[in-house]
């Protein structure tokens, strides 16, 4: 679909000149574009490659005076140190995987449900405060987490929700809402009203209409918004850092990775192994859903 414009152009308006020369120019252009493309891809991928490569190196290679691109003697030692909990001293990486998974999935569910309801209201109804509500969403999503963290810390302390995963889920869900609603309302709007009206005429109740007609049709949109809430919850740092404190067993993955990054005497091998493991799920998730991400990638980047 990105065919060079040269080819689409009808022959009649092609500039005069020997065909072969035009072809040669085109070839050089394609070649140099591709070369730049390869270069950009390599530079972009290199840091990730280096993280994975380091994760498989034994420590004498990591600190060797001449770094090598690939491990000469690949080892799983860094990964086993991370999985046994020996590297961090606070538990196996799987414990923190479980915590992050619980938080992320709960956030995605909660945020999707709430934003689906709200987006139906916004996309299907005209009501007095509709425009104000939408502008409020735009403004609210810009309030920086650092500005809220003081009050959230003191409030969640009173609610007894510090050092707990449900506390994080509440904050993350609310943080994901403005963008989720903003994205989802467009998907709801594309569902033809006639379907609902027909169902209503057939005597279906509104709840039934919602679940049987609307829900299946906006499911792709939900996937797109889920990506956004997934990223919000899986990557979040400052709230978890502040809320979790020394509750090691409740650490989410980012706090776990930084915990043993800041712990004196830890080594780069296990740290890179841990951040590789932390990165893999989100990268896989991206690659799997990237066909669905069309709109999601773009709008979902908000607050990335």
């Amino acid at each position, binding site marked *: 679909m990105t065919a060079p414009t040269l080819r689409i152009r009808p022959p009649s308006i092609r500039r005069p000149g020997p065909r072969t020369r035009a072809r040669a120019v085109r070839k050089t252009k394609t070649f140099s574009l591709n070369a730049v493309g390869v270069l950009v891809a390599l530079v972009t991928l290199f840091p990730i490659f280096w993280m994975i490569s380091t994760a498989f190196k034994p420590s004498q290679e990591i600190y060797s005076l001449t770094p090598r691109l690939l491990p000469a003697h690949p080892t799983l030692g860094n990964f086993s140190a991370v999985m046994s909990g020996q590297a961090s*001293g606070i538990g196996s990486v799987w414990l923190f995987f479980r915590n992050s998974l*619980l938080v992320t999935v709960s956030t995605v*569910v909660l945020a999707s449900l709430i934003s689906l309801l709200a987006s139906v209201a916004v996309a299907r109804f005209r009501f007095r405060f509709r425009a104000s509500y939408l502008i409020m969403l735009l403004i609210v999503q810009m309030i920086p987490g650092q500005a809220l963290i003081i009050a959230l810390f*003191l409030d969640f*302390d009173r609610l007894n929700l510090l050092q707990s*995963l449900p506390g994080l889920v509440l904050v993350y869900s609310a943080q994901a809402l403005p963008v989720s609603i903003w994205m989802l309302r467009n998907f709801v709007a594309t569902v033809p009203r006639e379907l609902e009206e027909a169902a209503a005429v057939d005597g279906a109740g509104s709840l039934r209409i919602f679940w049987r007609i609307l829900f299946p049709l906006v499911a792709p949109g939900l996937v797109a918004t889920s990506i956004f809430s997934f990223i919000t919850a899986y990557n979040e740092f400052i709230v978890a850092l502040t809320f979790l*404190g*020394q509750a090691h067993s409740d650490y989410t993955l980012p706090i776990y990775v930084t915990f043993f990054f800041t712990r*004196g005497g830890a*080594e780069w091998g296990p740290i890179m192994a841990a951040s590789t493991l932390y990165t893999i799920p989100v990268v896989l998730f991206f690659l799997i859903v990237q066909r669905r991400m069309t709109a999601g990638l773009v709008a979902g980047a908000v607050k990335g």
Partner: protein
Amino acid sequence: MKLTRSAAAFGAAALLAGAAAGCGSSSSSGSSASAAPAKLVVWRMGSSVPSQVTWMNGVVAQFHKKYPQYAKTKVTVDWIPWGNRVTDWTNALTSGKGGPDVTELGNTDTPGIASQGALASITSNVKSWSYGSGIIPGNLANDTVNGQTYAVPWFGGVRGIWYRKDEFAKAGITAAPTTWAQLVSDAKTLQKKYPGTFGLGAPSDYTNAIVSFIWGAGGQVATQSGSKWTATLNTPASEAGIKFYADLYLTQHVSPSKYIGQTELGAPGATSGGSDEDFALGKLDMYIDGPWAQAELTAVSKKYEADWASFPIPSVSGPNPSPAFSGGSDLGVWVKSKYQTADWDLISLMDSPANATTFANSAGFFPQFTSQLKGGAYAGNPVMAGFAKAAAYTQIAPLNSKNWATADATDAIIPTMMKSLMQGASFSATVNKANTELQNVLNTGSETG
């Protein structure tokens, strides 16, 4: 197809959400106020070292045996990186949750943390403790605020300069330097003899060593009259010490630029690569730290372990060394702990002369009991010998003043000053600015306390 897939995801997600709620509620159980706690949390500072884990297991076994009512009490040790301790205490104190039952404190932290109401008074416990009177009196006084005792000294130590006997011998240095001129010339000699190494590490974020140089030139950080502190960083003597330290990097070039902004253990809040590692790996010839560094050094490399030795930080013109900062750690009972009796019982075992001495010896510290320090116990040990000499000349004020934790751990007045000096900032303006800040912070709230 899309529908079924996302519907399935929803189902699984809902199950997980239920599980999350369940796990949260279960953790907030067991708040019985009875004497036998299910769990006691001890906050240790730094990073976990195997020998200290073994030692702690031994103490816990004694704890269970000596106090049968605690036989089922689990003792958990949480290791707090030094750089995080202030934030962690602060948040635990504000929230009243997630705090320790017993905490280790740097002895410079104790007065400030205690006056903020974070520690329970243990005055009567210490008075009735059979070993209480054996503690070095000055160090116990350090833990006393307004007549109340808030912590007991656990171990102490002083910083000196680590070197390698083999390097000194090959470079033709026959005696440890006792003046600053000798110290610099030895550092240069070593650096020339061992290309690619640096002579003497001078990290900028290293208050506890920098003060030794201020004192070694005859200066003071601050002086007190009545309840009023006067900061004295900009007196000629103090400035000489500050300038000497900054010049180790700036004009003498015996310390690398990468230590700017670092503590002796590397970048604050980041792992690996500090002057400690460089010394262990043979990339740094002389390294300022206490004997306790041995555990970290050997963890990095044991290659040169046999040649490690120490000497006290010299003073400007000798022969006596600079006064060393009398550092160390205390143990205190967290004010919001529900089991303060059990906390004290545990502390009394961790700090019994026998256990405290085993601990100190294994970790490179000096125990805090006068009885254990007598005699030439450390003369035969090349690493400890230099530090034992340094221990004869110590000072602590004003690092034990109530606001020191704010001045140093929070506002980082001396580290920030040293860093900008090493970045080339104007000397007297930078020192004067730090001096004003220090005086303000030290006198904060002095009218009330």
